[in-house]
């Protein structure tokens, strides 16, 4: 019984894109390391690489939770910006410690996310438009508030603990004589905590399962007694909360809270979940896949940077990777199910039904 369940789980794992991602990451790291031994330099290459993987994994999770209800969140970057703004302002202007300022920022972003979710659930407008309009509104608001609340358009006052999280490595953590490696930054801890929390939410809680059901078929969910409107709002609020955490991580790692935080998040937020097997249509998520997808793009980025490839080429490459990943997923889906694409199918079934009806008559 349990062994058959185990083998089924193993089969499902093999069919997902995750093993392929792991192989790709290992192969790429191998290639980069042999061609450029500097790629394995702990404090100068591996540590920054892990830092950016940690930050963008949380960004990817923020997108993943809205994708799970079949929506998208184009305001991920701006919600991260609002979170960082509120945190920075409360650290500098109110002088509060880390454990008060950070939840304040997370709350602000979560409320804004919930507001977007509420508009979507209440009016039924496409999530794309609501979050796009939201992102432009916030894009206008954030620099204005930085100008008003801060000196020199940035908050640089940091309470105790921010630098340790943002810039520290495991070398700073010692148990007696044994210290950690300086290649692993402490910032992976909040990322791992977010991953664990989100995984637990979707895998083990009733509300998490209800969010997934809402994503895979809103009507069925509604008829089964799931309060779909509230689940949509929850997903968007959670997205805002995670975005704020990612904004904090970026600010802590760069050393200041600026209006630029979140500006680069949008494409990356889609890359991670989509490469990792999260469906755009909703209902399927993969926390580990998101982290692996982000890791793959980060490794490619870092490796090509070492070869002196310019930023513009990297952008072109990331766009192509996104398209290629989706196209291969599509091809695999077609071969796995051997089913014609949807519109054709609906027309064909309709014709068949018409024929049946006529036969009965």
């Amino acid at each position, binding site marked *: 019984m349990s062994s058959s369940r185990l083998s089924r789980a193993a089969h499902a794992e093999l069919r997902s894109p995750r093993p392929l991602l792991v192989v790709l990451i290992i192969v790429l790291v191998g290639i980069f390391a042999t061609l450029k031994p500097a790629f394995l330099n702990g404090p100068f290459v591996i540590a920054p690489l892990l830092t950016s993987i940690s930050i963008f994994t949380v960004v990817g999770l923020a997108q993943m939770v809205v994708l799970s209800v079949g929506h998208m969140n184009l305001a991920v970057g701006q919600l991260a910006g609002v979170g960082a703004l509120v945190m920075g302002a409360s650290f500098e202007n109110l002088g509060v410690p880390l454990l008060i300022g950070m939840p304040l920022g997370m709350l602000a972003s979560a409320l804004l996310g919930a507001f977007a979710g509420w508009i979507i659930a209440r009016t039924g407008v496409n999530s794309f438009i609501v979050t796009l309009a939201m992102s432009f509104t916030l894009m206008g608001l954030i*620099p204005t508030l930085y100008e008003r609340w801060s000196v020199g358009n940035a908050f640089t006052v940091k309470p105790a603990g921010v630098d340790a999280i943002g810039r520290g490595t495991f070398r700073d953590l010692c148990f007696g004589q044994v210290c950690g490696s300086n290649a692993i930054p402490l910032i992976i801890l909040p990322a791992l905590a977010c991953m664990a929390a989100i995984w637990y939410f979707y895998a083990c809680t009733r509300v998490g399962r209800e969010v997934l059901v809402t994503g895979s078929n809103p009507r069925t969910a509604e008829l089964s007694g799931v309060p779909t409107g509230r689940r949509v709002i929850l997903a968007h609020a959670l997205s805002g909360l995670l975005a704020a955490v990612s904004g904090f991580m970026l600010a802590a790692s760069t050393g200041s809270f600026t209006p630029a935080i979140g500006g680069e998040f949008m494409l990356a937020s889609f890359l991670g979940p989509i490469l990792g097997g999260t469906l*755009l249509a909703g209902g399927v998520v993969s926390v580990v896949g998101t982290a692996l997808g982000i890791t793959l793009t980060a490794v490619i980025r870092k490796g090509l940077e070492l070869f002196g490839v310019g930023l513009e080429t990297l952008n072109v490459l990331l766009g192509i990777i996104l*398209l290629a990943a989706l196209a291969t997923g599509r091809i695999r889906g077609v071969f796995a199910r051997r089913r014609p694409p949807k519109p054709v199918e609906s027309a064909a079934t309709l014709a068949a039904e018409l024929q049946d009806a006529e036969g009965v008559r």
Partner: protein
Amino acid sequence: MRRVISANNLLLVGVVVVGAALLGAATAGQFFGPVSVTSFFRFLSVPILIGLAQMVTLCVGQLNLAVGAIGGVSACLSGVIITSWGVPPWIGALSAVVTGAILGLANGLLVVGTRINGFIVTLAMSQILIGVQYGLVGTTTISREAWPEVAAFGRSDIAGIPTTFIMTLLVAVAVALFFAQSVTGRRLLASGGNASAAQLAGISIDRTIVIAHTISGLLCGIAAFVSISFLPGVNTTVGGDWLLPSFAAPIIGGVSLVGGTVAVLGTVLAATVVRLVDAASPIYRFDAEVVNFVVGAVVLGTVALGRLREVQEARRASVLRSRRAEAALAEVRT
């Protein structure tokens, strides 16, 4: 005729008149001076064109996140072929239209060929094209001195109205005629309104999607041509701020987000309203960011209000229907 003078269009005309009057009052009439009017219309062409470009994709139930990137690449490629390859300025500048159409065609073929969500295809495409645009011009600006004839066209005006704006209005009329009169235009609308019904009627959905993206790219190319003609030069910033206005104009103008409708006049009027907000920013001394804030909030409000009205109308209709049924039932019983 009733479709043209809809409540939404009347409201937009009212907003334009009141807005212009307010700006006129705030500047003691200077806003209506010849220089000010000419520059108002000169900067209105691009928002109208990109609004129409977005409208065409919205009409078949798609969207185009790459409007800015297509326009930027088209403009920069024209600049490069004029300066580096020695192509005659007019041919070079007008080739932006062809470049735009080809890039739009590529978008459409990718959407149809891979069956990936159009949102993701155009997002990835915009990322790729922004890279290409940077690759073309880098950090430099190609000055308009390389195409003096085209720049003179961009600065010319007929009775105070810029020639480029008149050209833009002609393009808008052509788009309106395309959707109202041509078979292809009606097919686009039909497939956006109800894909399976259109398919049963013998319309190829794939073909309409490809056509819509191609026209969208073509209109972005025209916007790029206008940018080449009136901007001091082309660089990587061309197209960078087109995304919000491209959605704002059709949405405020009354185009449905699920497809099946177009509103050319509404889009033109809404672009004018957005331009008024833009023109107000130096007069009332607020930043470009505030313009974004206002426009974003207006889009959000329009969408939410429109949808709420639809829901209420549906509810009222169903109440009416049930009342009628009850009355009929009572009649049968007596």
